[in-house]
Each structure stands twice: as C-alpha cells, then as structure tokens.
C-alpha cells in the first residue's frame, strides 16, 4: 500500500475524496435519437436534423448502435447490464438545449455497478468502483466570445450520444483520478465505443471533490464541470481541495455547488452565482418506450469484445515473460498492443523459435527503439513508417546472428528514415555479421601483435583491458564481428 495522499492545512493533513462522472461520446455515425451526422468540426448547424433542433412535433428514435456500445462498455467494466432501462427527461432551459430538456437515463440506467482496476506509481493497483453508466444526449455549443452582442449557438453536437460513466467516490488523490480516466479511456478505445479524444471533447469529466480529516465522514462535495484533460483534472482537484480546506479551516462550510475550472487561471469558480437552484423535474420520456433486450443480445455483445487490457497485460507477463513495466506500456493503447503482437507473430514465424523465447526481445525493441523513434518523429504506431513485418524482419536478422545488436540499431534508424527493408539495407551496406573464426582469428592475431604493451598489462592482471581488445576488433571489422565469437577468440588468444 502506498501512503495516503493528503494536503497539509493549518490544522493538519486533509484527505481527498474524489468521484468522477465521465462523459464519453459513443462512436457512431449518427446521433442518439436522430439520423444527423456526428463528425467533428463541421460547419455550424450543418449536422442538425429537425429533431435535434427540437422543431415542433419532432420525435426521438433511438440508434441501436449506441445501445450496443453502451452494453459492450458495461461488459468491459465488468458491470451489471440492465435488460430493462428507461429514458427520462431532465428539464432545464439553456440556449444550447433546444428541447428544453435532455433525454437521459435517471432512475433506470442501462448499466449498473462495475469496477475498473487502475495502475499507480510503483506498480500499485487499485480497484475503483463504477456506480452506473447511462446513455444521454449531448447539448449544442454556445460561443460567447464570437460576437459583441450575441451568444452564438451551434447545434451540431446537440443530440450526439454520450455515455455518462459515474464512479464511486473511491479515489483519494489527483494521480488516482488521472489514472482512472486514463484507464477508462484505454478500455473504451480497446472496445471501440469511444475514441477518447479529450481535445475534441469526446471525453470529459465532471470531478466531484470533497475533503475530510482522516476517519471523518464524507464532507460536502463540489462538482467541477466538464474538465477536458488529465492535467486539468489534477490541477482542478488540487485547487478545489485547497479552496475547501481554506474555507473549513476558517470555520466556514462548503456549499454543495457546481463549479467551473478555468485552465488559464488554474482556478475553479462557482457557475451558479445568481441562478436559483436547479430542479430538473425528471420524468419518463413519454416519446420513448422502455429499452428492453434479452440475454442473447448481451451475450452477443460479450462475444464481440476483444481481449481487454488487463487480460492482455496478464498474458504478456505470465505467458510471454514480458516485464510488467513493458506490458503496461504495450497495453495502454490497443494499437500499440496490436503492433507488438503482429511483430511477435512475424518474428516467431521467421525464426521458428518459440514465442516465449523471442517475446522479450520484441517487447524491448518496440517499447524502446520503435517508440523512441516514433516519439521523436511525432508519430504513433498507426502512422509508423515501419510495419510490424518490417520490424520482424530486422529482429529475425538479429536473432539469427546475421547482424549484431549494434548494427541492428543503425539498420532500424535507416529503415525508419528511408522505408527500406532491413535485408535491403544490410545487403546494400554489407552489414552482415562476421562469424567466420578464421577471418576473425587473423584480425585478432594482428591486433595482439600491434599492441604488445596492452597485452602485457592485461596478462599482468588489468583485465579491464579486455574491452579495449573487443573495441579494436569491432573497429577493424566495422562493427560487424559477432561479439560472442570475438569474446571466445580473444580470451584464448590473450590467455597466451
């Protein structure tokens, strides 16, 4: 166990209690209740149907894909799937809420309790409970600063399907909150129910923050709305917790309220300063019937799930011998894990070696060489100039001794830059490793003859000089000498 994260106040340490409501946009072509498109960045009001604009007499019809993705997501977080759920109206007025209500699921969500295991610093793990997941409509967008006189309203997002995923108040530090969002994002991206793109608003979090002294009951919480990056989530939590601590230590009390995080100032501020308390007047949407499906539907969705990140990491560690650290890195993004597995598969085929024998080398190569190069080039595995097949060819050449590890690094650099295959480069540059003992013996004999002083010192006990002889041999062979063969020959020769 790690020690409890606390913030030190004038009266001593304070614990944080954090719960998150993540809004994740469902990957779908059309909206939750209308056939309008969902693509990001379109012309204003160009992806708006008469239903989204809440024209009189317009009615919602649910998108089956959104139901399917909500169920898949529920299954991926090990949650209870409710085969009977219902849509309610949440009534409030706002310029970007055309109906005057949001269609959401209040009393009977499609997904109930589940859990997510998060990874923390130092390899620690923690289980965070999920309270529920429900489907609801997104609102439109209000632009307050584009016109001197008006707020401008774009309804393109109005009606886009969101999954609201509500955690239990199980998190205790900004890092845990960030790890939770990161893990949730990974899972959603694995199963393809949300693209997790926080910059485009496909994923955003409402952060519930309260503070208490160790052992005390839960304090009053504030909800910070719509925080849209991992960094902001952590900043907002620290600011908000400190704000609450200041109030409490000054003898005040916390008002339960909704607050907004200002990334520019790094502060949260109250959103409803002069507005009355909301009364959402939830009631079942009479335009819709209860959402029902059978167990066979749920099982079909279960069968459609890919291997999930936790299971994949377990397999990498336990069956393939990949280090826990590398496994964590590899599974964090599904495309990276896929790249790794494709490369591993090709290496196994090319070398004929058992998978478990080569998996470590492949994992090392991908997490350090490939990711290093991709990072530097600002690319990702999906845009990588070298394919898993090309990587496998390079690794096979190294594993069968055709090229040395050092040469392999150069070849990879060349591959990355030129797009040529490993064998082409090795061939063209004559980089094949020299393993011929006769050829190497001649070179070594010459080095020993040319460096009598060093030989004498070595034989006199300065064994460190062995490296000098290896270096000389490598230099003489242009780095192509097989290091193992060189080692053996040198040992014999120097033994005199």
């Amino acid at each position, binding site marked *: 166990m790690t020690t409890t994260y606390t913030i030190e106040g004038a009266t001593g340490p304070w614990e944080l209690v954090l719960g998150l409501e993540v809004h994740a946009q469902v990957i*779908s*072509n*059309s909206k939750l209740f*209308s*056939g*309008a*498109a969902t693509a990001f960045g379109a*012309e*204003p*009001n*160009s*992806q*708006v*149907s*008469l*239903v*989204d*604009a809440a024209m009189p007499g317009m009615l919602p*019809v*649910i*998108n*089956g*894909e*959104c*139901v399917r993705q909500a169920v898949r997501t529920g299954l991926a977080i090990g949650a209870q799937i409710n085969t009977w759920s*219902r849509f309610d109206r949440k009534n409030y*007025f706002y*310029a970007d809420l055309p109906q005057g209500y949001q269609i959401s699921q209040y009393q009977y969500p499609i997904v109930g309790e589940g859990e997510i295991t998060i990874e923390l610093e130092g390899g620690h793990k923690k289980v965070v409970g999920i309270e529920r997941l429900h489907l609801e409509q997104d609102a439109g967008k*209000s*632009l*307050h600063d*584009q*016109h001197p*006189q*008006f*707020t*401008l*309203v*774009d*309804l393109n997002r109005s009606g886009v399907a969101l999954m609201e995923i509500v955690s239990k108040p199980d998190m205790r530090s900004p890092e845990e909150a960030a790890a939770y969002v990161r893990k949730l994002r990974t899972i959603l991206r694995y199963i393809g129910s949300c693209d997790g793109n926080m910059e485009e608003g496909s994923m955003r979090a409402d952060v519930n923050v309260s503070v208490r002294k160790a052992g005390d009951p839960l304090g009053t919480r504030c909800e910070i709305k719509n925080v849209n990056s991992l960094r902001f989530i952590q900043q907002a939590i620290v600011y908000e917790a400190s704000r609450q601590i200041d109030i409490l230590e000054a003898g005040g009390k916390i008002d339960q309220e909704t607050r*907004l995080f200002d990334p520019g100032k790094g502060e949260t501020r109250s*959103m409803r300063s002069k507005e*009355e*308390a909301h*009364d959402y*007047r939830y009631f*079942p949407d*009479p335009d*819709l*019937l*209860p*959402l*029902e499906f059978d167990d066979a539907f749920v099982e079909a969705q279960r069968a459609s799930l890919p291997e999930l990140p936790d299971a994949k990491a377990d397999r990498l560690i336990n069956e393939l011998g990949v280090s826990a650290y590398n496994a964590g890195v590899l599974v964090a993004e599904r495309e990276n894990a896929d790249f790794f597995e494709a490369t591993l598969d090709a290496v196994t085929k090319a070398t004929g070696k058992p998978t478990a024998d080569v998996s470590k080398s492949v994992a090392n190569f991908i997490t350090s060489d490939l990711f290093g190069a991709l990072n530097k080039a600002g690319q990702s595995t999906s845009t990588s100039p070298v394919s898993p097949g090309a990587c496998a060819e390079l690794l096979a050449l190294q594993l069968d001794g055709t090229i040395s590890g050092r040469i392999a690094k150069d070849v990879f650099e060349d591959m990355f830059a030129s797009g040529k295959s490993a064998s082409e480069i090795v061939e063209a540059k004559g980089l094949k490793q020299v393993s011929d003992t006769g050829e190497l013996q001649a070179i070594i004999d010459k080095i020993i003859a040319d460096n009598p002083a060093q030989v004498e010192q070595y034989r006199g006990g300065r064994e460190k000089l062995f490296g000098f002889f290896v270096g000389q041999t490598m230099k003489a062979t242009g780095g192509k000498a097989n290091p193992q063969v060189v080692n053996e020959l040198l040992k014999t020769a120097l033994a005199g």
Partner: protein
Amino acid sequence: MRDFPTYVGMVMSIDLETVKKIASLARITLSDEEADPLKGELNNILAWVEQLSEVDTDGVPAMTSAVETSLFQRPDEVADGGYAERVLANAPSAEFGYFAVPKVIE
C-alpha cells in the same frame, strides 16, 4: 427551501411565493396581478386532484406506456441533417449560420 411533504393525503396550499418560484422554473414572467388569481386556480386544481389519495395504489406499477410494443432501434446511418438553412429558416435571430441569443456571461 422548506421541507415539502412527499405524500398525498394532505391538502396543500401553495402561496404566492411558490407560484412565482414555479413560474420562474417554467420561465414565464408573472406580474403580481397575474400571479394572484393563478394562485387561487392552481390551488383549486390541486385540491381537486387530491382525491387520488383515496385510491389504493400499493403494489400497482406506474403506467410506462399506453402501447404494448417494443422500442424500435434505428440503424446507425446518417440519414438526416445537412440542411442548416432549413434549421435556421424560422430563427428570430441568426448570425453567420448560428442561432443568436442575448449574450450569456458564464
């Protein structure tokens, strides 16, 4: 806010302040001259619907729909939208393809 009873069985009478609170939730400006008679009418109606409290509804499920049919699920196709001009055709005020409303300070 006062503590409101959550059961039927007690004739509740709403006062002017409550009428105004409801009107503000419903976003309807009410003058005092309008609110006062409305208060009486609303109270009459509420007192009249109060008779439902006589009905024993223990164990009775609330009606969720007047139709016995299952919810139709649409295929995920882009089959609508793409007509900003139709969406904006009746707008009292529009600017640059957006609906325009009095400036909101958040």
